[in-house]
């Protein structure tokens, strides 16, 4: 098997995650889908690290994890405060920007 298959898997997971962001309305699930996309990216980075034979890809994946952690913290805080004020976790309910 060619290790490039890891990249295909990563691409597939990324596309699935993106589709999930687009179709789900529950903000928590949307967040999970974003996490899925980030993980897919991480997998690609790790595979690339192997491809190039150095550890830079892993470093980037590591930083991605850190940023993802920060993002989850803030994002979930937003979801909680949103739920408090609107009693709903639906992203469509927060559509005040339209006319």
């Amino acid at each position: 098997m060619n290790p490039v298959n890891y990249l295909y898997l990563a691409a597939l997971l990324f596309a699935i995650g993106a589709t999930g962001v687009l179709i789900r309305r529950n903000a928590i699930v949307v967040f999970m889908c974003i996490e899925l996309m980030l993980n897919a990216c991480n997998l690609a980075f790790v595979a690339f690290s192997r491809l190039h034979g150095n550890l830079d890809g892993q470093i980037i994946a590591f930083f991605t994890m850190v940023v993802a952690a920060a993002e989850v913290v803030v994002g979930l805080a937003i979801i909680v405060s949103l739920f408090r004020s609107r009693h709903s976790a639906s992203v469509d309910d927060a559509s005040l920007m339209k006319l």
Partner: protein
Amino acid sequence: MTALAAYTTSTGEAFQFWVLGTVAVIGALCTILMKKAVHSALCLAGTMIILAVFYLANGAYFLGIVQIVVYTGAIMMLFLFVVMLVGVTAADSLKETIKGQRWLAAACGLGFAILLFAGIGNASLKDFNGLAKANEGGNVEGLASLIFTKYVFAFEITGALLITATVGAMVLTHRERTERAKTQRERAEERVREGKHLPPLPAPGVYARHNAVDIAGLLPDGTPSELTVNKTLRERGQIRDVSSEALDDLRALEQRSTDRLERPDLRRTDTGRNGDGDRAEETEEASK
């Protein structure tokens, strides 16, 4: 331990890839298709664990462990906490409200996947160098030497980012208390002043059948009483209604007793009534 082939992988790894990769894709699909957020979270956690295995297989030992410990262990638990806070069973209806959104999303996802596949297929990614050399002095040591030399600036900045995110989360979720909390005595006095619900609120659950907190207690006529369940559950619409079930049970019981006592019709006689029969009759009248 770092005998990773340059061009192909071992059969064991191929087998592992195909089996676990399939599971990972199924997990990802379940994440986006499951109705309940909890199920989605669990599926995602599964996918992440499989990804951790893949990291290990690709020579990223440190990341593999971090993936399990930090991601699956901490971040996904955070998700579950929020799901619990926001509503375990708050299943959002899967009915689409935006016209054409689902088709567009599917088309976009599919198109994007095809694009990425084409991109990867076009790229010349034949020569995998493998990490044997890079991991010579140990994976963790290798990463550390990179992080604290080449990437030290980015590392410091991520530290700042994490601090900021923590403060941000606190600011977002913190609510200032504007008035002193009432004491129990004050609450009791208030209740007496208002003159309603002097005793404690009725307990939830139906006697001898359901004792969960989300089951509303039944009134004498068989209708559920909203007072018996927690206000939060009520607001979320997470009350389970067992009144019809209970009434069916009662009717069956009545039928059985009628059969045993060989009475043609219990309701036509004034004798031998019991509480259950009385209640059933009232319920029927009410339903008429």
